[in-house]
Every structure is written in structure tokens, then in C-alpha cells.
């Protein structure tokens, strides 16, 4: 009987807290969204599963001696996992459209206003009782507006590890929701005739330019904004592996083995931050709200900058492509294409939107570097 009692005391039922049960439900919801709704399944499925495992009572899987806790310690506390994923993203990304038309970097810059506006928004929430976001918290939340998973996880793990779970979930959820969030804003801010603008074909980009591109970005980053060097460096390292043409083996490893394996580990580890005390509170609601705000503002400022460029160039730029400046590669570019087709069945904007789209990745890495320099070290 003693054994049976011991066993009962070791069951989940005898040890469950309400919070754990709820968080297991949250994990299940994330997996449901991943599978049934195709919400960023590569990340949300492991995150959801990690949440279930780490909220299992007694087992301590997310604790310092548990498997997922150790993975978190090794891969996320150190920042290595998001950086390796960024290397893979660099190896997977074709910056050709951006090199062909560098001016689209302006769109990628404008869309980052969503980040800084959200920072103010997070600070403003402190006026409501129950919210107490520090500057570091506000910066971590704001980066959701960057629409870039690894960047958000990297910054949040540095500035506000406690909020990491909610921030990662918000970032990936809103990226999945880009096809719902962006179109109304895009339509509201542009006229039918603007949306019908056809753009010139992109010029050819030579192999040499592709190889020099990572160095151009890197030199600026190293000299002016070294705090962005880890993120930007790994992104450009991956891209150089891809474009150099002499290290195909390594490029393939970065695009496949490394990014796949790290994604599994990163997802599980992020899930360990989905604990009841850190997630089931009013702050998470605030983060979800602010995240949506960030995407909306970023989309709007991107489109507005598109309109400015349209004016300045005498109608050569379709303002819709500004919406792709939030990044969320390649989803936002596809949304631009789709909204454009609604106004003109023969106007394929996809390639033109890829420029601002990848510019947005660089833009939010720059923004992350600034926030690290001014908030992290400050």
C-alpha cells in the first residue's frame, strides 16, 4: 500500500496546479493552430509540444535538470539557436531583388516604425494598474513588430527572458495572421489607381554583386552598429555561404540540417517559457494586443512610405509593396501580390515586393541592434 501511495503522490493528478492544466491547454491550442490552420507549424508545433512537456507536474522537464530546460540553457540563454537559425535564413534568402533596387530599403526602414511605436505603447500600458513593463520589457515586446521570429527570440532572451514565451508566441502567431491583418490596412491607405501601378522589371544582378552584398551590409554594421553584428553577421554569413558558390556543402548544411535540427530544439525550449506564472497574466494580454498593434502600424508606415516613393518617382512605385517591409518573409510579399491582383489581374507584384520584404529583415536586425545598445547595455 505504501508503494501505491507513493505512486499516487507521483501522479500528475495529485500534483497538478490549475495553471499547469491551463497551459497544457494553451500548448494544445498552439498545436491545433499549427496543424489545422497551418499557423507557422515549423515553430508553433514544437513550441506547443514544449509547453505541454514543461507543464507536466513532477517531471521537471523544463527545469534545470530536465531535458528541455538544459536545451534552453545551452541554446537560448546563450543566443546561439536564434543566431544559427538566422544563418540558415541567410542561406535560404535571395537578396537579388533588393540589390537590383536598393531604394526599397527605405520601405524596410519605414516599416520598423511599428517597433518603436509599440515600445511607446508598451510604456503607456503602465498607466493601467497591473502592468509594469520596464524599458527592457517594452523593447522586447516592441520587436514583435519586426515580424521576424529569430530576431524577436534573440532580443527577448537578452532583455526579458521571462516574457520570451509570450513574445515568441505572439510573433509567430501574427506572422501567420499577416494575410488577415495586412489587406484591410493596405486597401484603406491606397487608391485603386495606385494599386494598379505596374512596376518596371528588375535589372539583372551579377554574381559578383551578390557576393559583395554581404560585405556591404557587414562593413556598415561593424563600423556603425556593432551591437547588431551577431544577428547581421550570421545572416550575412549564411548568405555568403549561399552566394559564394564555392562552399555548396556548407550552404546546404546551413539551409537544411542546421536549421531543421535547431528549429526543433528552439521550439521545445521556447515552449519551456510557457509556464502559468509567466504566461497566464494580464501582461500576456497586453503583449498580444501590442503585437497586433505593431504589425498594423508597421504595415501602415510601410505603405505610407510607398506612397511617398510613388510620388517622388512620378508613379513608378506601387505603394502596396511598402506593406512587405515588415518582413514576415515570404508571406507579406505574397499578400502584396494577392492584393495587387485584386485590382489588376495581370499585375504580378511578387518579385517587386521581395525587395522590401528582405529589406525588412535587415531593418529589424538594425532595430534590434539599436535596442540592445541603448536598452541592454544602458
Amino acid at each position: 500500500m505504501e508503494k501505491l501511495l507513493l505512486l499516487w503522490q507521483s501522479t500528475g493528478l495529485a500534483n497538478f496546479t490549475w495553471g499547469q492544466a491551463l497551459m497544457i491547454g494553451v500548448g494544445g491550442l498552439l498545436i491545433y493552430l499549427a496543424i489545422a490552420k497551418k499557423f507557422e507549424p515549423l515553430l508553433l508545433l514544437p513550441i506547443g509540444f514544449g509547453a505541454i512537456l514543461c507543464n507536466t507536474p513532477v517531471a521537471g522537464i523544463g527545469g534545470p535538470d530536465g531535458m528541455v530546460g538544459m536545451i534552453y540553457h545551452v541554446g537560448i540563454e546563450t543566443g546561439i539557436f536564434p543566431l544559427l537559425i538566422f544563418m540558415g535564413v541567410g542561406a535560404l534568402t535571395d537578396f537579388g531583388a533588393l540589390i537590383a533596387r536598393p531604394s526599397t530599403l527605405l520601405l524596410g526602414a519605414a516599416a520598423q516604425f511599428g517597433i518603436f511605436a509599440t515600445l511607446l505603447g508598451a510604456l503607456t500600458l503602465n498607466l493601467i494598474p497591473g502592468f509594469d513593463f520596464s524599458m527592457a520589457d517594452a523593447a522586447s515586446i516592441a520587436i514583435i513588430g519586426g515580424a521576424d521570429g529569430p530576431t524577436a527570440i534573440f532580443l527577448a532572451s537578452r532583455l526579458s527572458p521571462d516574457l520570451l514565451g509570450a513574445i515568441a508566441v505572439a510573433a509567430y502567431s501574427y506572422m501567420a495572421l499577416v494575410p488577415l491583418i495586412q489587406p484591410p490596412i493596405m486597401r484603406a491607405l491606397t487608391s485603386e489607381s495606385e494599386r494598379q501601378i505596374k512596376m518596371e522589371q528588375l535589372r539583372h544582378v551579377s554574381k559578383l554583386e551578390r557576393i559583395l552584398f554581404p560585405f556591404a551590409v557587414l562593413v556598415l554594421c561593424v563600423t556603425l552598429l556593432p551591437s547588431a553584428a551577431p544577428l547581421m553577421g550570421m545572416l550575412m554569413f549564411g548568405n555568403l555561404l549561399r552566394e559564394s558558390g564555392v562552399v555548396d556543402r556548407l550552404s546546404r548544411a546551413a539551409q537544411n540540417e542546421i536549421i531543421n535540427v535547431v528549429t526543433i530544439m528552439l521550439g521545445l525550449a521556447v515552449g519551456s517559457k510557457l509556464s502559468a506564472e509567466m504566461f497566464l497574466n494580464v501582461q500576456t494580454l497586453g503583449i498580444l494586443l501590442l503585437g497586433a498593434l505593431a504589425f498594423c502600424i508597421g504595415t501602415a508606415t510601410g505603405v505610407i512610405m510607398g506612397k511617398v516613393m510613388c510620388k517622388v518617382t512620378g508613379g513608378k512605385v506601387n505603394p502596396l509593396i511598402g506593406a512587405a517591409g515588415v518582413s514576415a518573409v515570404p508571406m507579406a510579399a505574397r499578400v502584396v501580390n494577392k492584393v495587387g491582383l485584386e485590382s489588376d489581374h495581370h499585375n504580378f507584384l511578387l518579385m517587386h515586393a521581395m525587395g522590401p520584404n528582405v529589406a525588412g529583415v535587415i531593418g529589424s536586425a538594425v532595430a534590434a541592434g539599436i535596442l540592445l545598445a541603448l536598452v541592454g547595455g544602458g
Partner: protein
Amino acid sequence: MSFSELFLEGLQLMGVGMTIVVAFLILLIGVLRLVAAAVRRWAPEETAPEARPAFPQGAGAVTDRRLTAAITAAVVQYRKRRRT
């Protein structure tokens, strides 16, 4: 601990252990039957959507054929240019 104590504890462990293993798996049989019944009732023979997203962002809700055609066209066109 003497041998007889240890052996008795082992016996106890055997009894409790086998009971739990069998109980757990019988419970699982029940749950699986429930699931099967539920699926038969509420979701009989769904046809799988078969969408396999590329990395790093999913195929998303955007799946109308026109888009796919457009993307393909754009990519083909772009590649052609790039090669020239």
C-alpha cells in the same frame, strides 16, 4: 536491508508495477476506442489537405490557384532574366 526485506519489496514492486502497466494500457485502449468512435461520428474520412509549407514561413491561408500561377510565372520570368 536484509535479503528478505529486499525481496519482499521487490515482490511488492512487481505487483504494483504490473498492475499499473496493465491499468495504464487498458485505459489507453478505452481512450483510443473513444477517439475512434468520435472520429467516426464527427469527422468521418476527412480528405487530408496535404499542404507542406516551405521554410521559414508557412504556406498560410493564401492558397488560391491564381496566386500559385502568378508566383510561378514571376519566378520563371525572373530566373530567365537573371540567366541572360
